[in-house]
C-alpha cells in the first residue's frame, strides 16, 4: 500500500537562493512525524510546497500514491490534505460555529448552493458542534473568533483542519504564541488526534516533539539532515552539533 503522503526530490529556489533542497519525506498512514530545524531551515516553505501554496522548482508530491504536484491548493485540500497555519488564518468576523460550518460546507460541496439557506441543514450544524465539543469549544460557538483569547483561537485553527476530515494533517507550530499555562490544552488535542490520520507537526519545543512524535525529520538549510526515532535523533552527533548548538541546552531546541 502506498504511503499517505510522499515527497520525492523536492526543490524550490527563490532566484539563486535554494530554500528547499532534494527533500524526501514519507508519511505512512497514521504516522506521527515531527519536522524540526533551526529558524530559517525552510520548514514552513516545505509545508507550503506540500499544500500547494508554492510550486516546487522540481520534484513530486504524492497523496495516497497519486501525483498531486500540478494540482491547486484547494484541490489538494478536497483530496484530504489539511493544514494549520503558524499564524492564525481564521474568519475573524464570523462566529466559531460559522467557521466550522463553512469548512464542512466547502468539504461537502454545499457551498455550490445559492438558493437553500445555510442554516437549513441541521446535519452540518450538528457535525460542526461535534467538532467543537471534542475540543471543548461549544460554549464559544456563538462568539466571534476575534473576541476569543489567542489560545482558544489556536484551537479553532485545529478544529477547522479536523472538520475537513483529512487523511494527512500538517500542523505548523500549533502551540505558537500560546502562553505555556494554556499550551497543554492544545497539546492534549494533538495527542488525541484520530490514529488513522497521518500527522506532520512542526515544532520548536523538544518536550512536545518527544511526547508526540514517533519519527523525527531534521531540516537544516532546506535539506534533510537526518531522520529517525526520537531516541536516535537525540543521540545523533550531527544533530547535536548543527542543530542543538555547541552549548548543548538540554531540552531546548529553539534556534
Amino acid at each position, binding site marked *: 500500500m502506498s504511503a499517505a503522503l510522499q515527497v520525492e526530490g523536492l526543490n524550490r529556489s527563490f532566484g539563486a537562493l535554494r530554500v528547499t533542497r532534494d527533500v524526501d519525506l514519507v508519511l505512512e498512514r497514521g504516522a506521527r512525524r515531527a519536522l524540526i530545524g533551526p529558524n530559517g531551515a525552510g520548514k514552513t516553505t516545505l509545508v507550503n510546497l506540500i499544500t500547494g501554496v508554492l510550486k516546487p522548482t522540481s520534484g513530486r508530491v504524492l497523496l495516497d500514491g497519486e501525483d498531486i504536484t500540478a494540482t491547486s491548493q484547494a484541490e489538494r485540500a478536497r483530496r484530504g490534505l*489539511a493544514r494549520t497555519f503558524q499564524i492564525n488564518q481564521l474568519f475573524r468576523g464570523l462566529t466559531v460555529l460559522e467557521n466550522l460550518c463553512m469548512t464542512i460546507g466547502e468539504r461537502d460541496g454545499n457551498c455550490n448552493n445559492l438558493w437553500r439557506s445555510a442554516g437549513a441543514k441541521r446535519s452540518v450544524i450538528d457535525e460542526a458542534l461535534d467538532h467543537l465539543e471534542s475540543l471543548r469549544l461549544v460554549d464559544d460557538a456563538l462568539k466571534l473568533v476575534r473576541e476569543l483569547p489567542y489560545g482558544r483561537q489556536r484551537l479553532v485553527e485545529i478544529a477547522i483542519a479536523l472538520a475537513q476530515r483529512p487523511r494527512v494533517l500538517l500542523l505548523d507550530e500549533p502551540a505558537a504564541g500560546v502562553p505555556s499555562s494554556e499550551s497543554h490544552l492544545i497539546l492534549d488535542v494533538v495527542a488525541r488526534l484520530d490514529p488513522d490520520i497521518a500527522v506532520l507537526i512542526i515544532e520548536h519545543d523538544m518536550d512536545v516533539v518527544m511526547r508526540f512524535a514517533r519519527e523525527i525529520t531534521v531540516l537544516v538549510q532546506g535539506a534533510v539532515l537526518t531522520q529517525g526515532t526520537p531516541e536516535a535523533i537525540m543521540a545523533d552527533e550531527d544533530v547535536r552539533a548543527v542543530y542543538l548548538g555547541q552549548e548543548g541546552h538540554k531540552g531546548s531546541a529553539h534556534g
Partner: protein
Amino acid sequence: MAASDGKNAERIAARDRAAEFLLRRHRFRWPEALPWLIAIGCFFAFPERMTFGSQVLIMLLFALSLDLILGYAGIVTLGHAAFFGIGAYTVGLGAARLGWSEPISGLIAAALLAALGGFVTGWFLLRYRGLTLLMLTLATAIMLQETGNLRSDISGGYDGLPGLAFSPLFGVFDYDLYGHTNYLYVLAVLAIAFYFVRRIVYSPFGQALTGIRENVRRMHAIGSPVHRRLVTVYTIAAGIAGIAGALFTQTNAYVTLTVFDFDNSAKVMIMLILGGTGRLYGAFVGAVVYMVLEDKLSKLSPTFWQFGIGLMLVLAVLFARRGLLGLIEEAGRLVSRRTKT
C-alpha cells in the same frame, strides 16, 4: 447518574442554542417589511414626485448589486457602471435601432448581456485584488464608454439616444406623465431582485463569499474554489446592475454614454458605504439618503451642492464606520440594553 443526566441535558441545551442561531438567521423579521411599506407609502404621499422616486429605487437596485460583490465577497471595484451601462444600452439600442420596445423582454436581455459582460471580464480580472483590480475594473468601464464613442453613429455618443418609446407593460399599463406606472414597475422589479439577493446572501454560497472576504488564504486551505465563487457572484451582480441600467433607460426614455462614467461607479459606491456594506439594507438607506440630499442640496445651491455630499461622507466615515445602518443598529442595541437593566 442524575448528575450526569443533568450535565447531558445542559450540554444538549447549549448545542441547541448554538444551532438555533444559524437555523433562524435567514428567517424573515418584521422590521424588514418597513422599507417596503415606506416605498408604497411614498407612492400615495408624494404622487407628483414619482419620477424622482423611480430614480431613487433604480440607484438602490444598483447599490444592492454592488453590495453583493463589495459587501459580501469583498471585491473592490470602480467599474460597476460598466454593467449598468450595458443594461442601459441593451434596451436603448433595442428600442432605437431594432424597434424592440417590449419592456419585460428588454429587461431580461439586459440582465443576460450584462451578466455575460460580468462573466467574461470577471474571469480575467478576478485573479487580481486590491489596487490592481481597482484600476482594471475602472479601465473596463472606460473602454466600453470609448467603444460607444467610437461608434457614435450607432450609440448616439454623448448626445445619446433620445425619445425612446416603450410599449405598455404587459401590453396593458401605459406610462403616465407623472411616472406612476414606472414607479410601481421599478418597485416590483426591485422586490423580485431583492428576494434573489437575499436568498443568495443567506445560502451556503453566500457564506463562502463572506469567507473569501474574511480570509482568502483560509478559503484556499479548506478547498474552496475561490476564483469560481468570485466569478459566479460577479456575474450575478453584473446581471442585476444591468437590470438597473435597463430600468434607467426605460423610465427616462433616453440614454447617453454618461451611464458609463466613473462618476456613476463612484456614486453607487459612496451610497453603499454611506448606508453600510454587507448588510442588504445598507443599500436602501444609502441610496435614499444620498439621492434625497442631492435633490435638496442642488435646489438650495446649484453650484456648491456637492460640498454638502462631501461633508456628509466625511462625517459618515469618521463617526459611522459601518455606515448609517450600522449606526442605527448600534443605537438600537444601546436602547435595548438600557431597557433591560
